[in-house]
């Protein structure tokens, strides 16, 4: 009797853990966006999901699970079964900067398996056009002359602009960034840029796409972009012009991840689907309109990319002494 129970239990365990890739997918796939509707991640994720919907044999259901800077949605996917039916649109904020800055996060990067990073967002630093600051050197001088008086706004604690603002200053030789500049968190990139426009904060470093309209209209002035190539519309020195290759790790990205237990064969299938989906004309049009660069990495490269970035940022946060404490 006992043996039969054990055998059944073992059988059930095998059935539950055996990769069911042979018939994967046989039901709709839920893809979770950990940020609100209408934001950059949402637009990007929905555009890709629409393209994937034409390729993946089962319907794709996109769901927003917002809150706590993307932590709530991320945890839902971490806790899901690794059967490939619950996936996450992860982003630089949720899986690079926030884990590096915030030790109170309820998840870690290695609890996820990445199956495809597909979007890169260049980062730029901007100031109000009325400001006396015309170049990044002006900004650095200003911070050095008045430590503790220059402020920057971000999309919230642990968000990419939070990290970017501190990191750029430290690359340019501000030693104690935690003390010398003031971080003003706001509700999102839109609000962070509004703060620059209103004079609430002095500068913002973040994705070029939300800043592009303000630069185009002359309301804001770009100081630099962190990519070696120039960004259209941003008439500012690149990392190559500045001879600062250290800046280049500071880019935004979006990718798809499952829980760490996601098996190889399912990851492989996604690699193929994504390779086809990113060719979709409508998807490319939306990405281009938003100022993002489409760059698909295969599953192995994605894992490497995210882990390298997470490690580099965590080290940087420790060295700069900007990790949050509770």
């Amino acid at each position, binding site marked *: 009797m006992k043996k039969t129970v054990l055998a059944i239990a073992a059988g059930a365990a095998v059935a539950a853990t055996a990769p069911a890739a042979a018939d994967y997918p046989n039901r709709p796939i839920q893809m979770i966006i950990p940020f*609100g*509707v*209408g*934001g950059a991640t*949402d*637009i990007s994720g*929905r555009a890709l999901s*629409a393209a994937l919907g034409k390729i993946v044999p089962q319907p794709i259901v996109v*769901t927003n*699970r*917002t*809150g*706590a*800077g993307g*932590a*709530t949605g991320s*945890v*839902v996917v971490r806790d899901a079964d690794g059967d490939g039916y619950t996936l996450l649109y992860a982003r630089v904020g949720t899986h690079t900067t926030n884990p590096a*800055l*915030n030790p*109170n996060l*309820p*998840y870690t990067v290695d609890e996820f398996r990445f199956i495809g990073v597909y979007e890169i967002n260049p980062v730029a630093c901007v100031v109000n056009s009325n400001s006396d600051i015309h170049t990044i050197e002006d900004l650095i001088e200003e911070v050095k002359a008045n430590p*503790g*008086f220059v*402020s920057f706004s971000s999309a*919230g*604690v*642990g968000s990419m602009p939070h990290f970017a603002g501190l990191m750029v200053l430290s690359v340019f030789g501000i030693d104690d960034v935690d003390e010398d500049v*003031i*971080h*003003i*968190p*706001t*509700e*999102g990139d*839109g*609000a962070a*840029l*509004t*703060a620059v*426009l*209103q*004079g*609430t*904060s002095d500068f913002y470093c973040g994705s070029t*796409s939300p800043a*592009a*309209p*303000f630069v*185009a*209209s*002359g*309301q804001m002035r770009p100081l630099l972009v962190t990519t070696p190539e120039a960004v259209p519309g941003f008439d500012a020195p690149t990392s190559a012009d500045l001879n600062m290759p250290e800046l280049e790790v500071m880019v935004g990205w979006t990718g798809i991840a499952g829980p760490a237990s996601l098996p190889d064969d399912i990851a492989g299938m996604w690699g193929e689907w994504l390779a086809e989906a990113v060719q979709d004309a*409508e998807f490319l049009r*939306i990405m281009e*309109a*938003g100022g993002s660069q489409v760059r698909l990495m295969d599953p192995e490269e994605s894992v490497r990319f995210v882990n390298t970035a997470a490690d580099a940022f965590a080290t940087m946060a420790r060295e700069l002494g900007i990790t*949050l404490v*509770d």
Partner: protein
Amino acid sequence: MSFFDAFVQGFALVAQWESLAFLALGIAIGVVAGAIPGMSATMAVALTLPFTFAMQPITGILLLLGVYKGGIFGGSIPAILIKTPGTPASSATALDGYPMAEQGKAGKALSMALYASCIADFVSNLALILVAGWLAAFALNFGPPEFFTLIVFSLTIIAGVSGDSLLKGAVAALFGLLLATVGMDFIGGTNRFTFGSPDMMAGLNFIAVLIGLFALPEIFSHIRNPKEREGNVRKLGDSHLTREEFRGSLKSILRGSAIGVFMGSIPGIGAAPSAFLSYSEARRASPNRENFGKGEIEGVAAAEAGNNGVAGATLIPLLSLGIPGDVITAIIIGAFMIHGLTPGPLLFTNHADLVYALFIGLIASSVLLLFIGWFAVRGFRYVADIPSNLLFPSVLVLCIFGVFAINNSIFDVGVMLVMGLLGYAMLLLKFPAAPFLIAFILGPLLEDKFRQSMLMSRGELDIFVRGPITIIFWCLTVISVVLIVRSTMAAARIRRQQRRTSMPPRTGTNG
């Protein structure tokens, strides 16, 4: 391109059947979505967004704006009929709308909500077209300290919706403030009252709290005491408004529209505080002050004018500065960008025809809202005719579905049920729910803006009197508090006198 050319070209863009048809379709979608509990105007706009990608820019944007405006009005329908605000902005409408429905005047309440919405919407659109530049400059001067003083002033609304006991209102408000602190702290990133739960880190969902607090206590009291309403089908009532009723509310509608325009043009406030502020101002100015909260038609008018007055004005910072005023306009910015249009000062130079087309479309939307809303009112008011033993279980199911759908989260459903129990306890103990809700909405804004200001000023408190705007709000707050104290004391005096007259006369009394 001269103004006239741009205007003519804009007119040509709108005067196509597609533009008007999609605008009307958007309003219809919005009204229906707003009327479903848990389905907010924000969600409806977000779900419509992908369909606009393949459209002409002007039709796509008009469709979204239609959904937005329809959704804000649609929220008032369930607020009045079943005390379940479809959108946060319509919770103020439930305060007097639901008592009216109870009294068999659902039709009148809905009609008033519609007229107030359309008039406020029209005023708001006019403000966008005529004084956008001026209001945009004003919005740019509205930093965290100004915002903070505005919220402090808005907290005085609590006195206006506290009902009979100011003390109970204040206690309810403190509870709201306390619950609003749950979640990850916005400035420092620390977890507050989360007990290690990632769901709690996101804070308590606003709509779950709203529905739990307003709709569920009604259902619970019906379960406990079904006899009370057995066989007593509420009448729809006449939906025709008399000239006197309309005229009596017109002042409140116009005041509400103005408040809506003002609050809408400031990025980050949204429609709910505006509706409450308009409601409390109407109550303060009304001769029927005592009747507010008990089915006063002017209360419905003021609340709806306050929330629809925001709709056009939120486009002021969007179009003139490129700043999204609220979540919905943030989505609409997305729609602009997808079509390669960048909202902001350049839009007026590079795409003047589109801007004028939008303006004309917006004016048309006020009129279309009147027509579509008229049909909706006639369709939806039959809900009031459903016997309560069918209606209440259906409402409960709808609430659970709606709250689940916000985030696909069963946790939110749990929040709603717990808030329902709390709301029921408050109902039994005669604690008003509205102060709780206002504090819950304004609490996080108050804290964030205070702390942002402190960061800006490096801890100097004098930032809160840094300019004329902050000083005006401090003065308004003081005036408001003085008025509250005076009216509370006057009310206490009247009660004392009533008690005295009902008792045998005594000698030697003094005041």
